[in-house]
């Protein structure tokens, strides 16, 4: 009985007793959730357009962040005196680099592999991952770097709000991250829902030959999509890098998006958003209220548990298309 009490009653009592702590936890969950949603969006975009699960999304995050930091250091060394100017110049160049990367991927990987089974493309993204790991280490070195948070003008410190008989402390960087990620998620969702290129993207996802027959250029759609995924990776890299540091370990962050995708469905943009929020908030609540029961540290695997339960009940995810294959 004691264990039942501790699982089902005590956590809720705690929530009621200290509402400020609950709000704090929810806030942290929300921020993590929005960032997860952003990463998941990178996967969804590419999956929708090329039908391939992009294993390289994680390394793209690292690669983008490393490029940004590396270029910044280089520009400073070359005598750009203002850190801010250097930071934004580096940001602009990084965006160009991400575009070039998308273009190269289309040329070197997607185009030669057109009409191949999905599993081949999936394996190709593994190849891409190891290539980018190697390239990143070669050019920027393997040691962790710190994100140029200040030069980019991202805020530091925290705001303390008095509420519910206590304090809720909001990290400014978290607020910035939540705002930027929300804006990006919304605009990408609108862009792919409402515009010609968005329609072309969905068309390509449904049928290659029909898309070709109406004059949609597969090449162009792929470059656009991989570029968008690159920008998403860059944003993720900046936000996540600002919270820890920029190193190859960041790659792991991308795999936090896996449960989000399971939850939201691989093909749905709203699914990525809602899934991200559920995972983010669920993870923090789980860690804070139920974690002590198991000696803490459940944050690392709790999301996967949620995903696993979901897979049993609703394998296509919350918003995913139900795909029935005839055998």
């Amino acid at each position: 009985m004691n264990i039942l009490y501790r699982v089902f009653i005590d956590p809720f009592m705690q929530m009621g007793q200290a509402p400020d702590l609950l709000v704090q936890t929810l806030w942290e969950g929300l921020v993590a959730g929005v960032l997860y949603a952003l990463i998941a969006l990178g996967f969804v975009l590419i999956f929708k357009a090329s039908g391939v699960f992009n294993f390289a999304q994680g390394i793209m995050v690292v690669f983008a962040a490393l490029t940004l930091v590396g270029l910044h250091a280089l520009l400073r060394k070359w005598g750009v005196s203002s850190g801010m100017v250097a930071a934004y110049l580096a940001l602009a160049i990084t965006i160009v680099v991400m575009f070039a990367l998308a273009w190269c991927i289309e040329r070197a990987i997607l185009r030669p592999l057109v009409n191949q089974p999905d599993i081949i493309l999936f394996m190709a993204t593994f190849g891409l991952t190891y290539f980018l790991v190697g390239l990143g280490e070669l050019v920027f070195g393997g040691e962790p770097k710190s994100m140029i948070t200040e030069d980019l003008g991202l805020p530091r410190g925290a705001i303390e709000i008095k509420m519910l008989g206590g304090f809720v402390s909001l990290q400014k960087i978290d607020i910035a991250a939540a705002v930027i990620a929300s804006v990006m998620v919304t605009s990408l969702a609108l862009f792919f829902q409402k515009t010609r290129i968005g329609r072309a993207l969905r068309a390509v996802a449904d049928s290659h030959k029909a898309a070709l027959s109406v004059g949609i250029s597969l090449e162009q759609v792929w470059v656009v999509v991989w570029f968008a995924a690159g920008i998403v990776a860059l944003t993720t890299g900046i936000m996540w890098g600002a919270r820890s540091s920029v190193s190859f370990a960041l790659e792991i962050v991308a795999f936090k998006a896996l449960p989000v995708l399971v939850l939201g469905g691989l093909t749905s943009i709203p699914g990525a958003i809602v899934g991200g929020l559920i995972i983010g908030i669920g993870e923090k609540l789980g860690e804070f209220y139920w974690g002590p029961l198991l000696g803490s540290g459940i944050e690392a695997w709790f999301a996967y548990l949620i995903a696993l339960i979901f897979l049993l009940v609703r394998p296509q995810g919350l918003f995913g298309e139900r795909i029935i294959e005839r055998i």
Partner: protein
Amino acid sequence: MKEPGATEAAAREVLLAVENVSLSFGGVKALTGVSFDIRKGEIRAIIGPNGAGKTSMLNVINGFYHPQQGRISFKGVTRNRMRPFEAAQGGIARTFQNVALFRGMSALDNIMAGRTLKMNRNFFWQLIRFGPAAAEEVAHRRRVEEIIDFLQIAHIRKVQVGRLPYGLQKRVELGRALAMDPDLLLLDEPMAGMNLEEKEDMSRYILDVNEHFGTTIALIEHDMGVVMDLSDRVVVLDHGTKIADGVPDAVKSDQAVISAYLGVAH
């Protein structure tokens, strides 16, 4: 039904000419030295037994397949090979033997997708979907609504096409091709799997498209009644070679054609 306009058709200018086209996949010869032309404003049928190379021919014309030999002239430009994008941009639209629609999208969005090439506001306007891009979307939407009215599919315009019955899917697919305002429309078995009523509807749409929009049409069809009624001229393929070419009546009585369809005693 249509008057045989063969003499009239023969006098018109050539829109597309296929010269000596050969296509093979490994050791399998799909097409061997096929030549024929399609003249402006006519309905041109391509017929032949199963595996004769009809669909391969359409795939060559709109650039899905690249022939090893031969040339294709379209609107006076001669190429060794078309690319799908060039074909679409040049005004060649098509439908497919097994409907190829964007299944997850609504009928309306499918047909709008046919306007892709006509919309040319650049990326950044679209990004914010504001100003010229919004106005453009509205203008194209108007044309698409005309097509929807013409095909009498207004009631299903918001329905996801994967859920529509087969006959209506074929009609949406035709709508998507029409949305490209094509000069040459390739129809690959537009009536396959349809009942009599649906076939009659489809025949009427094809004739209307040809007469009202002046669209040149090349179609593959197995229903001989339909082929003979609709088309101005017929080209017959068998085992990848051309065995007859002419007006329906002449083709019907051609000995090689009869042999190909009915088989000959050995």
